[in-house]
């Protein structure tokens, strides 16, 4: 019995070292990074995705040069590991956000990292739309802008929502990495305490909160997709 106790102690776990206020602050930082970056990622990614779709072959604005260029940029941004991308865009971040640290300093790199990813998902979701529906809209005298707004974005809503869910979850893991470069949040907490100060308990709690957050996002996303699907 006493042997078991000493074994437990020897793992070094001391849950009293956890400061709930600090966890709460970190959670709030993570949520604000996620929320802000998601809004900008959706806006920018929608534009990228719609342009990729429209300029691809046999679509409304078939422009092979524009498509190839855009596609290349998207592929490059998606290939660079996020942590390197984040450091590489620091000068730009300073221009846009005025700082490279704190929550504000993480938004530009998060958006630059996630928007191309979301853009590809948007392109894929738009490709799922039956061409006949677009043809019918053309036959009714719809302009290209009418088709984007009233047909493409409307018909692909379930696919777009699923894409937003996947992107939000990707952003959660990106925010954790952003913490390393002074962004704050749960990932930062986990690394500072868990890795650098050997306070494993804090790391475990931070990771558990991240897991809960991802679960919650996925469930919310799935529920919304089910709610708006009409097929």
């Amino acid at each position, binding site marked *: 019995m006493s042997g078991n106790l000493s074994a437990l102690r020897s793992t070094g776990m001391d849950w009293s070292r956890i400061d709930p206020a600090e966890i709460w602050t970190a959670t709030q930082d993570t949520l604000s990074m996620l929320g802000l970056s998601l809004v900008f990622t959706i806006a920018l990614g929608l534009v990228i995705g719609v342009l990729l779709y429209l300029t691809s072959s046999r679509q409304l604005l078939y422009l092979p040069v524009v498509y190839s260029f855009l596609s290349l940029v998207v592929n490059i941004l998606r290939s660079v590991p996020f942590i390197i991308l984040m450091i590489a865009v620091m000068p730009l971040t300073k221009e846009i956000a005025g700082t490279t640290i704190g929550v504000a300093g993480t938004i530009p790199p998060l958006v630059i990292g996630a928007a191309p990813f979301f853009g590809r998902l948007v392109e894929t979701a738009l490709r799922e739309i039956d061409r*006949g*529906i677009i043809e*019918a*809209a053309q036959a009714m*005298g719809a*302009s290209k802008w009418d088709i984007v707004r009233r047909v493409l974005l409307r018909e692909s809503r379930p696919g777009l929502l699923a894409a937003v869910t996947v992107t939000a979850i990707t952003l959660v893991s990106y925010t954790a990495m952003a913490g390393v470069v002074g962004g704050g949040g749960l990932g930062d907490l986990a690394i500072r305490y868990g890795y650098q100060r050997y306070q494993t308990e804090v790391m475990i709690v931070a990771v558990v909160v991240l897991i809960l957050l991802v679960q919650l996002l996925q469930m919310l996303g799935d529920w919304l997709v089910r709610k708006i699907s*009409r097929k």
Partner: protein
Amino acid sequence: MQHVTKIYKGRGGTVDAVKDVSLKVEPGEIYGIIGHSGAGKSSLIRCMNLLERPSSGKVLFGGRELTSLKERELQAERRRIGMIFQHFNLLTSATVRENIAFPLVLAGQSKRRQAARVDELLELVGLQAHGDKYPAQLSGGQKQRVGIARALAAEPAVLLCDEATSALDPQTTSSILSLLLSINEKLGLTIILITHEMQVIRSICDRVAVMDAGRVVEEGPVLDVFLRPAHGVTKQFADELSELEGGAPLPRRAGSKLVRLHFVGEETYEPVLFEAVKGSAVQCAILQGTVSRMKHTPYGQLLVELSGSPSDIDGAIASLRSSGIDAEVLP
């Protein structure tokens, strides 16, 4: 349409889908284009509202040359040309009402006018009870009714039907056809349809064009074209209609003659055959026959075997011909 040609360029070379087709459709008529799959019908109807731009030739609509219009002008003209499709092509994320209102939204009409027009159209196509449903909750026939209502929403002058009944069962097909016919008669709407089904041409069309390998091989009033087909493809479709079997040898008695009789119009119901053989020594056996209607015109075809002395048979045939029947002696 004047000298319209459509060529598709693909990796495997070029395909001439439509070759030098000229057609004129009169206001208020139902014009059918029939052909087997791959004959170019679908490309042809898509050239009419420029969903496919013809490689050469002109498309004229009510005096305006569509092929020369700018994009904005073309969009405005397209609102006067309704179109329905084989696979309906309804917005899956919109209700029946929203689908029907779509052309009105494009035209920038007020919500109140939209709602009133949608109510009228729902009544016209008999879907009053289904306005708030989504397309996935409807049957094929109901979806096509929504397609028709949507196509009519902006009060077009012409309705293009791209194989509109090909995905429907025979019963639903007839109900959609009678809806189209009643719209044509009630609203004076010109209808242009393409199909591979003879039943569609027979039941509602005034004039017909037969397409084969990208060309129009025969054209004219439905009765003329199918009762006296000249081209091989037309004959195939006409045979489908008459249900007379070709090929199988028929039993024949020595000294008899096989005669095919065509009746058109009211004479279909007259006892002409009886009159012709009555009082003569000719015997008459009906081997095959059909009596039906093309749109509103009754017509019939009979294959009869006449036996007796050659002069009596010739007399009977002459008597049939004199009562206005087209009698064709088969070898």
